[in-house]
């Protein structure tokens, strides 16, 4: 008798070929039958009127810390995500020496916007110092699959100590990093991540940025030995720099036979030819035989912030950053009050920046603390400032002071919000759907629901992709690009990662505040819409009727 049969669904198998109605049979965590009528099973689920697809793969996440205290990566699974790639952008939790944990934690918490209390409560370092130890610690305690990257910055820290952020490596140090990378890949890493943009909490470039091209070349040679992937976060705000990085990646890909990926690529109204030029560069690389995959996120860019939590949005405003970084709330409130004029001036200067537009006036009041201010919710700072006869900076700061820093502001659709243009970009065969940043930036925006949004906006609304193309974009395509061999396609013998959903309603719920993380503060999440069932390696892990299955631990390290 079979373990599980999902009956009479429209099977969209991930290949991109048209769906067909039939049953999906699962036994011992594997798919054993696709289509036709399956025999009896211990558990049967009806999928009549629903789509049966491979579990979705999210290739750009930062669940490293969250997975230490939340085996579900909540709420990723209910959106149909069954495999995630953490460790992007040069930062992974291992390998790391004991005395480097504090420096690394500050770097990770800053760059990925993870609250200190949540990080400290959740990351107990029980695995010691090695990458394999970290994966061993996760094994058996995962509700979804993990295909982890090892971070270039931590490799440098491990080998060079504090000098990782001071100088290029010596030949001997490069060889040590190469050996360490081999060890991580053999332990289960799917590849190496590096960053060309990030800074730490002292504004110092992260270690990977101190690497000479020869160092990255040597590490890429190791990736070539193991057929592993190189991920970079590049200067995504500048088209010429993006194209230069594509050229560098193409050279590395050709020299070492590796797949490379860069994230993110955004559509920008300010540089309307930028995407076309980037795609031309990718096409040229592809014509040379290089594997260079740009990652494109589906959702528009929205950013929320409050002075109650530190936000990367404030990083380029030194006065605001300084007060936002004060841990003690009473001290922070006093500092904001004391430095009011400097903060106002700095906020008002936003409008003077290139493409600054309304500056702070473009922010909208998202939530308030005091009942008397509830009528301000949904109103722009420009509107409020006009009414009060003050500057944007004064309106914003005085409201947040009145509410003892608890006011939330949002700027919606900052970019990447032209659905026709983004849809065309997502449909491009040389583009890879990714860059969700799952598990990161928890106070700035929700990183959940990008897969649902792919269907609701770009299949149903704009028609940029067919249902089958959209499924392929987040299943077989990432599985192939990332070398996750037995996932992403509903085929006999493959792992039974499955999502059942309603093609007419799958989407993302509204962005809501959640206080589920350890410590104070909130994060922004979106719940699923239109998903019925999620199966991970044959385990029914989430259903719309019953929610998350307690103690579901079907997830594995997908690369072991």
């Amino acid at each position, binding site marked *: 008798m079979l373990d599980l049969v999902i009956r009479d669904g429209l099977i969209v198998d991930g290949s991109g070929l048209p769906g067909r109605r039939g049953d999906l049979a699962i036994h011992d965590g594997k798919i054993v039958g696709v289509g036709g009528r399956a025999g009896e099973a211990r558990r049967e689920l009806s999928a009549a009127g629903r789509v049966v697809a491979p579990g979705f793969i999210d290739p750009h996440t930062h669940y490293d810390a969250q997975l230490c205290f939340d085996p579900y990566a909540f709420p990723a699974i209910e959106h149909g995500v069954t495999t995630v790639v953490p460790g992007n952008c040069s930062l992974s939790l291992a390998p790391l020496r004991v005395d480097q944990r504090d420096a690394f934690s500050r770097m990770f918490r800053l760059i990925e916007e993870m609250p200190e209390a949540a990080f400290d409560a959740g990351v107990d370092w029980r695995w010691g110092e090695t990458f394999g130890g970290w994966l061993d610690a996760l094994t058996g305690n995962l509700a979804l699959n993990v295909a982890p990257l090892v971070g270039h910055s931590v490799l440098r820290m491990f080998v060079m100590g504090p000098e990782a952020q001071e100088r290029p490596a010596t030949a001997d140090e490069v060889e040590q990093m190469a050996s360490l990378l081999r060890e991580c890949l053999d332990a289960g890493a799917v590849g190496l991540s590096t960053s060309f943009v990030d*800074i730490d909490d002292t504004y110092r470039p992260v270690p990977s940025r101190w690497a000479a*091209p020869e160092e990255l070349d040597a590490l890429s040679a190791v990736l070539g030995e193991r057929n592993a992937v190189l991920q970079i976060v590049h200067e995504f705000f500048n088209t010429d720099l993006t194209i230069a990085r594509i050229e560098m990646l193409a050279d590395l890909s050709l020299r070492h036979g590796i797949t490379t990926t860069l994230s993110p690529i955004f559509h920008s109204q300010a540089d309307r030819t930028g995407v076309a030029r980037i795609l031309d560069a990718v096409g040229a690389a592809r014509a040379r035989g290089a594997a260079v995959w740009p990652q494109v996120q589906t959702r528009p860019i929205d950013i929320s912030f409050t002075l109650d939590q530190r936000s990367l949005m404030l990083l380029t405003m030194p006065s605001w950053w300084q007060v936002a970084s004060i841990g003690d709330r009473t001290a922070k409130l006093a500092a904001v009050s004391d430095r009011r004029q400097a903060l106002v001036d700095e906020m008002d200067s936003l409008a003077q920046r290139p493409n600054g537009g309304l500056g702070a006036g473009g922010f909208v009041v998202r939530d308030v603390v005091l009942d008397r201010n509830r009528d301000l919710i949904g109103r722009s700072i420009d509107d409020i400032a006009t009414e009060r006869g003050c500057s944007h900076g004064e309106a914003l700061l005085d409201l947040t002071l009145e509410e003892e820093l608890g006011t939330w502001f949002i700027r919606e659709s900052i970019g990447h919000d032209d659905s026709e243009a983004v849809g065309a970009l997502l449909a491009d065969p040389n583009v890879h759907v990714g860059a969700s940043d799952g598990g990161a930036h928890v106070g700035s925006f929700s990183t959940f629901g990008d897969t649902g949004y792919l269907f609701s906006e770009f299949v149903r609304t704009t028609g940029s992709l067919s249902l089958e193309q959209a499924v392929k974009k987040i299943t077989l395509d990432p599985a192939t690009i990332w070398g996750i061999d037995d996932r992403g396609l509903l085929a006999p013998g493959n792992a039974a990662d499955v999502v059942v959903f309603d093609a007419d309603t799958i989407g993302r719920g509204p962005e809501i505040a959640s206080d589920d993380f350890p410590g104070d503060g909130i994060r922004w999440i979106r719940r699923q819409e239109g998903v019925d069932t999620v199966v991970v390696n044959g385990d029914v892990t989430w259903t719309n009727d019953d929610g998350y299955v307690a103690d579901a631990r079907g997830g594995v390290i997908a690369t072991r």
Partner: protein
Amino acid sequence: MRRFVTPHPGDDLAAVAARELPGVDEADHQLLSWNLHLAARAGLGRSVGLLPSDIVFTEPPLPAR
């Protein structure tokens, strides 16, 4: 694609300019004007100069298509 180089150990923009733009008057100023992403870095905290992984364009932006 715009031509670019990555810095040699110990390089500053003047050194890159001398190597890549020999005989050009005020080559380091030219180079800086073509690499505003490097000029902007000085505005954030302490300046770290050129990094080994930086891209330095050695020609101006290409004409728009």
